[in-house]
Protein backbone atom coordinates (compact mmCIF):
# COMPACT_ATOMS: atom_id res chain seq x y z
CA UNK A 1 0.00 0.00 0.00
CA UNK A 2 1.45 3.37 -0.96
CA UNK A 3 1.07 6.35 1.29
CA UNK A 4 -2.23 8.05 2.05
CA UNK A 5 -2.13 11.56 3.48
CA UNK A 6 -5.00 13.27 5.26
CA UNK A 7 -4.74 16.90 6.30
CA UNK A 8 -6.66 18.32 9.25
CA UNK A 9 -6.46 21.40 11.46
CA UNK A 10 -6.20 21.36 15.25
CA UNK A 11 -6.35 25.02 16.15
CA UNK A 12 -3.56 26.64 14.19
CA UNK A 13 -1.63 23.39 13.86
CA UNK A 14 -1.81 21.49 10.58
CA UNK A 15 -1.77 17.76 11.19
CA UNK A 16 -0.74 15.41 8.39
CA UNK A 17 -2.05 11.91 9.09
CA UNK A 18 0.07 9.53 7.06
CA UNK A 19 -0.84 5.89 6.48
CA UNK A 20 0.95 3.18 4.53
CA UNK A 21 4.53 3.09 3.28
CA UNK A 22 7.00 5.92 2.79
CA UNK A 23 9.54 4.38 0.45
CA UNK A 24 11.23 5.33 -2.81
CA UNK A 25 8.64 5.41 -5.57
CA UNK A 26 5.92 4.50 -3.13
CA UNK A 27 4.98 7.60 -1.23
CA UNK A 28 8.17 9.52 -0.59
CA UNK A 29 7.57 12.06 -3.36
CA UNK A 30 3.88 12.41 -2.40
CA UNK A 31 4.94 13.40 1.09
CA UNK A 32 7.51 15.87 -0.22
CA UNK A 33 4.95 17.58 -2.47
CA UNK A 34 2.38 17.83 0.31
CA UNK A 35 4.79 19.40 2.79
CA UNK A 36 6.08 21.84 0.18
CA UNK A 37 2.52 22.88 -0.68
CA UNK A 38 1.64 23.46 2.97
CA UNK A 39 4.81 25.46 3.60
CA UNK A 40 4.27 27.51 0.44
CA UNK A 41 0.75 28.50 1.47
CA UNK A 42 2.02 29.70 4.81
CA UNK A 43 1.36 26.84 7.23
CA UNK A 44 4.02 27.23 9.91
CA UNK A 45 3.00 24.65 12.51
CA UNK A 46 3.01 21.21 10.95
CA UNK A 47 2.63 17.97 12.88
CA UNK A 48 3.40 14.80 10.97
CA UNK A 49 1.45 11.88 12.41
CA UNK A 50 3.20 8.62 11.50
CA UNK A 51 1.19 6.29 13.73
CA UNK A 52 -0.35 4.47 10.74
CA UNK A 53 2.88 4.26 8.75
CA UNK A 54 3.95 0.65 8.39
CA UNK A 55 7.32 1.08 6.69
CA UNK A 56 9.87 3.83 6.08
CA UNK A 57 13.12 3.32 4.17
CA UNK A 58 16.08 5.70 3.86
CA UNK A 59 14.31 7.57 1.04
CA UNK A 60 11.34 8.12 3.33
CA UNK A 61 13.66 9.32 6.07
CA UNK A 62 15.22 11.64 3.51
CA UNK A 63 11.81 13.09 2.68
CA UNK A 64 11.09 13.75 6.36
CA UNK A 65 14.41 15.60 6.58
CA UNK A 66 13.65 17.48 3.38
CA UNK A 67 10.23 18.43 4.77
CA UNK A 68 11.81 19.60 8.00
CA UNK A 69 14.25 21.79 6.07
CA UNK A 70 11.52 23.18 3.80
CA UNK A 71 9.25 24.14 6.68
CA UNK A 72 12.13 25.58 8.72
CA UNK A 73 13.24 27.69 5.74
CA UNK A 74 9.71 29.09 5.56
CA UNK A 75 9.97 30.12 9.22
CA UNK A 76 7.88 27.22 10.51
CA UNK A 77 8.26 24.05 12.53
CA UNK A 78 7.69 20.42 11.59
CA UNK A 79 7.34 17.91 14.41
CA UNK A 80 6.66 14.17 14.48
CA UNK A 81 3.92 12.24 16.26
CA UNK A 82 3.18 8.57 16.87
CA UNK A 83 6.36 6.85 15.83
CA UNK A 84 6.44 3.06 15.91
CA UNK A 85 9.38 1.36 17.60
CA UNK A 86 10.86 0.63 14.19
CA UNK A 87 10.71 4.26 13.10
CA UNK A 88 12.12 5.37 16.45
CA UNK A 89 14.99 2.93 15.91
CA UNK A 90 15.63 4.48 12.48
CA UNK A 91 15.79 7.96 13.99
CA UNK A 92 18.23 6.68 16.62
CA UNK A 93 20.48 5.00 14.06
CA UNK A 94 20.52 8.08 11.84
CA UNK A 95 20.91 10.50 14.79
CA UNK A 96 17.81 12.35 13.60
CA UNK A 97 16.42 12.22 17.11
CA UNK A 98 18.66 15.22 17.64
CA UNK A 99 16.88 17.05 14.81
CA UNK A 100 13.18 16.22 15.16
CA UNK A 101 10.91 16.92 18.09
CA UNK A 102 8.99 13.69 18.62
CA UNK A 103 5.75 13.17 20.54
CA UNK A 104 3.61 10.19 21.52
CA UNK A 105 0.62 12.30 22.54
CA UNK A 106 -1.16 14.54 20.03
CA UNK A 107 -2.46 17.05 22.57
CA UNK A 108 1.03 17.53 24.00
CA UNK A 109 2.43 17.89 20.49
CA UNK A 110 -0.15 20.55 19.59
CA UNK A 111 0.49 22.44 22.83
CA UNK A 112 4.24 22.45 22.13
CA UNK A 113 3.74 24.76 19.14
CA UNK A 114 2.30 27.54 21.27
Amino acid sequence: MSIKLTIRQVGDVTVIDAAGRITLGDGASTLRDEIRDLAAKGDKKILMNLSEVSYIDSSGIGELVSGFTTVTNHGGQLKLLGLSKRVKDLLQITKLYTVFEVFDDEAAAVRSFA
Partner: protein
Amino acid sequence: MTEHQGKGIQSVDTLMDSTLDSVDVAEEAVLRVAEEIGFSEDDRHPIGMAVRECMVNAVVHGNRYNHRKKVHLAVLKGYDRITIVVGDEGDGFDFNAVPDPLAEENLLNQSGRGFLLIRAFMDDLEVRPRQPSGTEVRMVKYLVKDV
Protein backbone atom coordinates in the same frame (compact mmCIF):
# COMPACT_ATOMS: atom_id res chain seq x y z
CA MET B 1 15.74 -17.83 -10.95
CA THR B 2 18.27 -20.65 -10.43
CA GLU B 3 18.43 -22.75 -7.30
CA HIS B 4 21.49 -24.69 -6.13
CA GLN B 5 21.49 -27.14 -3.27
CA GLY B 6 24.59 -28.36 -1.50
CA LYS B 7 25.70 -29.60 1.88
CA GLY B 8 23.85 -27.51 4.46
CA ILE B 9 23.46 -24.57 2.11
CA GLN B 10 21.05 -23.62 -0.62
CA SER B 11 21.35 -20.68 -2.91
CA VAL B 12 19.14 -18.71 -5.24
CA ASP B 13 20.66 -16.71 -8.10
CA THR B 14 18.49 -14.20 -9.90
CA LEU B 15 19.09 -11.66 -12.64
CA MET B 16 16.75 -8.71 -12.19
CA ASP B 17 15.72 -5.70 -14.24
CA SER B 18 16.85 -2.26 -13.11
CA THR B 19 13.43 -1.19 -11.88
CA LEU B 20 11.87 -0.35 -8.54
CA ASP B 21 9.61 -3.39 -8.96
CA SER B 22 12.76 -5.51 -8.68
CA VAL B 23 13.40 -3.92 -5.28
CA ASP B 24 10.07 -5.23 -3.98
CA VAL B 25 10.56 -8.66 -5.59
CA ALA B 26 14.04 -9.02 -4.09
CA GLU B 27 12.87 -7.98 -0.64
CA GLU B 28 10.01 -10.48 -0.72
CA ALA B 29 12.28 -13.28 -1.97
CA VAL B 30 14.84 -12.69 0.75
CA LEU B 31 12.17 -12.45 3.45
CA ARG B 32 10.81 -15.86 2.37
CA VAL B 33 14.26 -17.43 2.72
CA ALA B 34 14.82 -15.69 6.06
CA GLU B 35 11.55 -17.14 7.34
CA GLU B 36 12.53 -20.63 6.17
CA ILE B 37 15.81 -20.34 8.08
CA GLY B 38 13.89 -19.40 11.21
CA PHE B 39 14.43 -15.66 11.61
CA SER B 40 11.72 -14.04 13.71
CA GLU B 41 9.54 -11.26 12.32
CA ASP B 42 11.56 -8.73 14.33
CA ASP B 43 14.74 -9.98 12.66
CA ARG B 44 13.22 -10.27 9.20
CA HIS B 45 12.18 -6.63 9.06
CA PRO B 46 15.74 -5.22 9.25
CA ILE B 47 16.99 -7.90 6.84
CA GLY B 48 14.31 -6.83 4.38
CA MET B 49 15.22 -3.18 4.85
CA ALA B 50 18.90 -3.91 4.24
CA VAL B 51 18.02 -5.71 1.01
CA ARG B 52 15.75 -2.83 -0.03
CA GLU B 53 18.49 -0.25 0.57
CA CYS B 54 21.01 -2.36 -1.31
CA MET B 55 18.68 -2.98 -4.25
CA VAL B 56 17.79 0.73 -4.47
CA ASN B 57 21.50 1.55 -4.60
CA ALA B 58 22.00 -0.98 -7.39
CA VAL B 59 18.97 0.10 -9.46
CA VAL B 60 19.12 3.86 -8.92
CA HIS B 61 22.77 4.74 -8.32
CA GLY B 62 24.54 1.76 -9.91
CA ASN B 63 22.57 0.90 -13.03
CA ARG B 64 20.70 4.24 -13.14
CA TYR B 65 17.51 2.49 -14.27
CA ASN B 66 19.31 1.41 -17.48
CA HIS B 67 17.18 -1.36 -18.98
CA ARG B 68 20.24 -2.95 -20.57
CA LYS B 69 21.86 -3.41 -17.17
CA LYS B 70 20.85 -6.09 -14.68
CA VAL B 71 20.98 -6.46 -10.94
CA HIS B 72 22.49 -9.75 -9.76
CA LEU B 73 20.87 -11.11 -6.61
CA ALA B 74 22.13 -14.19 -4.81
CA VAL B 75 20.61 -15.48 -1.59
CA LEU B 76 22.47 -18.18 0.30
CA LYS B 77 20.48 -20.07 2.86
CA GLY B 78 22.66 -21.51 5.61
CA TYR B 79 21.45 -23.38 8.69
CA ASP B 80 22.47 -20.50 10.94
CA ARG B 81 22.71 -17.52 8.58
CA ILE B 82 21.43 -15.80 5.50
CA THR B 83 23.90 -14.38 3.02
CA ILE B 84 22.73 -11.90 0.39
CA VAL B 85 24.84 -10.69 -2.51
CA VAL B 86 23.66 -7.79 -4.68
CA GLY B 87 25.67 -6.77 -7.72
CA ASP B 88 25.09 -4.01 -10.25
CA GLU B 89 26.60 -3.28 -13.66
CA GLY B 90 27.24 0.43 -13.08
CA ASP B 91 30.42 2.45 -13.06
CA GLY B 92 31.32 1.49 -9.50
CA PHE B 93 31.96 3.88 -6.65
CA ASP B 94 34.39 4.50 -3.82
CA PHE B 95 32.63 3.21 -0.72
CA ASN B 96 35.10 5.06 1.51
CA ALA B 97 34.27 8.36 -0.17
CA VAL B 98 30.61 8.26 0.92
CA PRO B 99 30.05 11.21 3.29
CA ASP B 100 29.43 10.21 6.89
CA PRO B 101 25.66 10.69 7.35
CA LEU B 102 26.15 11.04 11.11
CA ALA B 103 28.48 14.01 10.82
CA GLU B 104 26.85 17.21 12.07
CA GLU B 105 27.17 18.90 8.68
CA ASN B 106 25.47 15.96 6.91
CA LEU B 107 22.58 15.31 9.28
CA LEU B 108 20.15 17.29 7.14
CA ASN B 109 21.25 15.75 3.84
CA GLN B 110 18.31 14.22 2.03
CA SER B 111 20.18 11.08 1.01
CA GLY B 112 23.24 9.02 1.91
CA ARG B 113 21.88 6.88 4.77
CA GLY B 114 21.48 3.57 2.93
CA PHE B 115 24.78 1.97 3.89
CA LEU B 116 24.44 3.27 7.44
CA LEU B 117 21.19 1.31 7.77
CA ILE B 118 22.61 -1.79 6.06
CA ARG B 119 25.56 -1.77 8.44
CA ALA B 120 23.26 -1.32 11.42
CA PHE B 121 20.92 -4.13 10.39
CA MET B 122 23.33 -6.80 9.16
CA ASP B 123 26.17 -8.59 10.99
CA ASP B 124 28.70 -8.60 8.14
CA LEU B 125 28.98 -6.19 5.23
CA GLU B 126 31.48 -6.23 2.40
CA VAL B 127 31.50 -3.83 -0.55
CA ARG B 128 33.82 -4.49 -3.47
CA PRO B 129 34.19 -3.80 -7.18
CA ARG B 130 32.38 -6.29 -9.38
CA GLN B 131 34.03 -7.69 -12.50
CA PRO B 132 33.87 -6.60 -15.24
CA SER B 133 32.03 -3.52 -13.94
CA GLY B 134 29.89 -2.32 -11.10
CA THR B 135 29.73 -2.91 -7.39
CA GLU B 136 29.00 -6.02 -5.37
CA VAL B 137 27.64 -5.90 -1.84
CA ARG B 138 27.74 -9.01 0.31
CA MET B 139 25.92 -9.04 3.62
CA VAL B 140 25.30 -11.68 6.24
CA LYS B 141 22.85 -11.99 9.12
CA TYR B 142 23.35 -14.74 11.69
CA LEU B 143 20.50 -16.55 13.37
CA VAL B 144 20.70 -16.29 17.14
CA LYS B 145 18.66 -19.08 18.64
CA ASP B 146 17.20 -18.87 22.12
CA VAL B 147 18.84 -21.30 24.54
